């Protein structure tokens, strides 16, 4: 991950700015929920929300919208700049080669790496780098605040999510294996398209179209079987996952509702817990997927590292 470290270090100012905007944005989002809690406590008992509270809520939502826009711009600019540095570092490596090393290069392979691996890495930076960081900040900030509001409810409602995470890891592996088999079958089948075009004259001359169609049909049948297996596995596991992800909401109502009935917690706080459950349990459920994405990204970065020269600032 030295390459990522070098890239981030080169643009540390932009990275820190984006992180700061993200932290402030999540802070404002939590502040919005605090306003919401106050309003709900008032209106649920038939009262009217105070003008000051309404104005504060309006200002908060305007600020939140502005910060989301700013976060989009900052993370966009930072990610695109990191991608530019990566591309330039890649080109710089080739520009610095001597004549012997340049002659030994496989141009097609180098261009393919630019198009595929660097595009994958840039795509990850663009779509996921700051969203992972954003999720982490959101999770930590929300979890900390909820712990401060009601530690017992926070822990008991979210502990089962740890088990759900384990389920997500196992189910992802099972789906991944089925998907890999389907992909292998797909590659074998796609190869027939190339064969058809390549041997077309012979196909015509020796009337061999039925032979090739039969072979293609066999590969297609194997692909169908693998594809159907993958889809069945995915449907069952993802449906169960979606069902199990209702657990945090159930627990919040059952345990939190009991606390509200007993008078140890307000309705507004319960509402905020429900509103923010996505920030905690939702992020936790996504962690295995994010880790898998990051692993693929790290593998690509490792492959690229010897061929990228990042100039220190």
């Amino acid at each position, binding site marked *: 991950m030295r390459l990522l470290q070098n890239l981030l270090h080169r643009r540390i100012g932009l990275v820190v700015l984006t992180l700061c905007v993200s932290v402030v944005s999540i802070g404002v989002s939590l502040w919005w929920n605090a306003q919401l809690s106050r309003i709900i406590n008032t209106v649920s008992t038939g009262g009217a929300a105070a003008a000051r509270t309404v104005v504060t809520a309006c200002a908060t939502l305007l600020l939140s919208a502005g910060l989301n*826009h700013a976060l989009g711009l900052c993370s*966009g600019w930072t990610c695109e700049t990191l991608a530019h540095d990566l591309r330039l570092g890649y080109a710089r490596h080739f520009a610095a080669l001597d004549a012997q090393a340049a002659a030994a290069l496989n141009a097609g392979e*180098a261009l393919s790496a630019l198009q595929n691996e660097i595009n994958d890495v840039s795509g990850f930076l663009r779509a996921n780098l700051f969203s992972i960081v954003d999720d982490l900040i959101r999770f930590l900030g929300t979890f900390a605040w909820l712990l401060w509001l009601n530690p017992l409810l926070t822990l008991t409602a979210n502990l089962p999510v740890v088990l759900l995470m384990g389920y997500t890891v196992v189910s992802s592996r099972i789906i991944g294996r089925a998907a890999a088999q389907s992909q292998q079958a797909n590659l074998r089948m*796609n190869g027939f398209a*190339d064969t058809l075009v390549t041997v077309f004259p012979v196909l015509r001359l020796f009337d061999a179209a039925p032979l*090739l*169609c039969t072979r293609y049909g066999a590969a297609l049948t194997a692909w169908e079987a693998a594809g159907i297996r993958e889809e069945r596995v995915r449907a069952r596991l993802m449906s169960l996952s979606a069902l199990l992800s209702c657990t945090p909401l159930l627990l919040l109502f*059952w345990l939190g509702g009991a606390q509200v009935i007993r008078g140890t917690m307000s*309705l507004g706080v319960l509402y905020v817990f429900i509103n923010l459950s996505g920030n905690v349990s939702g992020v936790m459920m996504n962690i295995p997927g994010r880790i898998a994405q990051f692993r693929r990204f790290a593998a690509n970065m490792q492959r690229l590292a010897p061929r990228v020269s990042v100039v220190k600032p």
Partner: protein
Amino acid sequence: MRDLQALLRATGGWRRFALLILLRSPFDALHTLVRAVYLQAAFNAIQRGDARGLGISCAVFGIGSLLLFLYNGTVWTLYATHTVRWIGTVRRKLFAHIASLPLAQIEAQPSGSWITRLNADVQAAAALLSQPLHLPHAVCGMVNLAVSSLVLVCIRPAIWGLVALFVVPHLLISRFVIARPMTALAESAQQITAQNTADLDALITCADTAILYDAQDYLLERFRRSSLALRRANMRMRRRSACGAGLYTLLGLSGYLLVLLLGGAWIAAGALTFGDLTAAFQYRGGMIMGAVMLTNSLINCRAALAGVRRVNETMQLPKEGL
């Protein structure tokens, strides 16, 4: 959609598709209904101080969710199986058809074009029926939007009006100000990407010449300029997305706040309970999600229909001897 009809008529299985899509369509709407009823019952029970009632509504929600996801899993499996088999049929027919074309026709186009027809075009056409946010999700979104709207109009027309007041401009701005220009911006970014790749190609294939004439810095500078142009092109798209993110927050939260304050007034007047209001929020969410899903799916369907069109064109090429 006429292209899709033509393809389905040629390959068969359209009745089963129609049935399975219909069976899939109510899932989101039912999910919204189940959550809304649960929240309504749970909050009402909490406000009444009825712990037993709360327990019952949690249990009913658990059972309802179980049945709902069981239904969804079953229909999903049947649909996905049928889709895979249908794609197989399309591929078989297309392969056999191409194998029966005259050699002159095959040689008149680059081999890559035929490989694209057999692989990429079929995948694009199949995406219409098998990928997320395409035809099935468009139907689901439409049903969710319709059901949520209907329920909201029945329980509180004023809330429906407020929701529509915020959702419609959001969708129009998302579609015409943000999404539509993105196509042209994405094409421009692709052209600049091609130029950037060409600049790297020059660095690699002309390396000998560059070393001889000390032109490596010149070639690197060309690459740097095209890379910066690519950054600018991508940022134009990111700016639009950032506008979308800000807009979504602004319209979403302000609509939420207005409904909350209006609902509060009704609660104060005794016309509504807090549980009823939270249910209304669920239907509001159903309307928004349904509308967004429908809009996004229709955009994706348009792109996928290009693949369907190309598959149909290939299937209509005259065979040898005809």
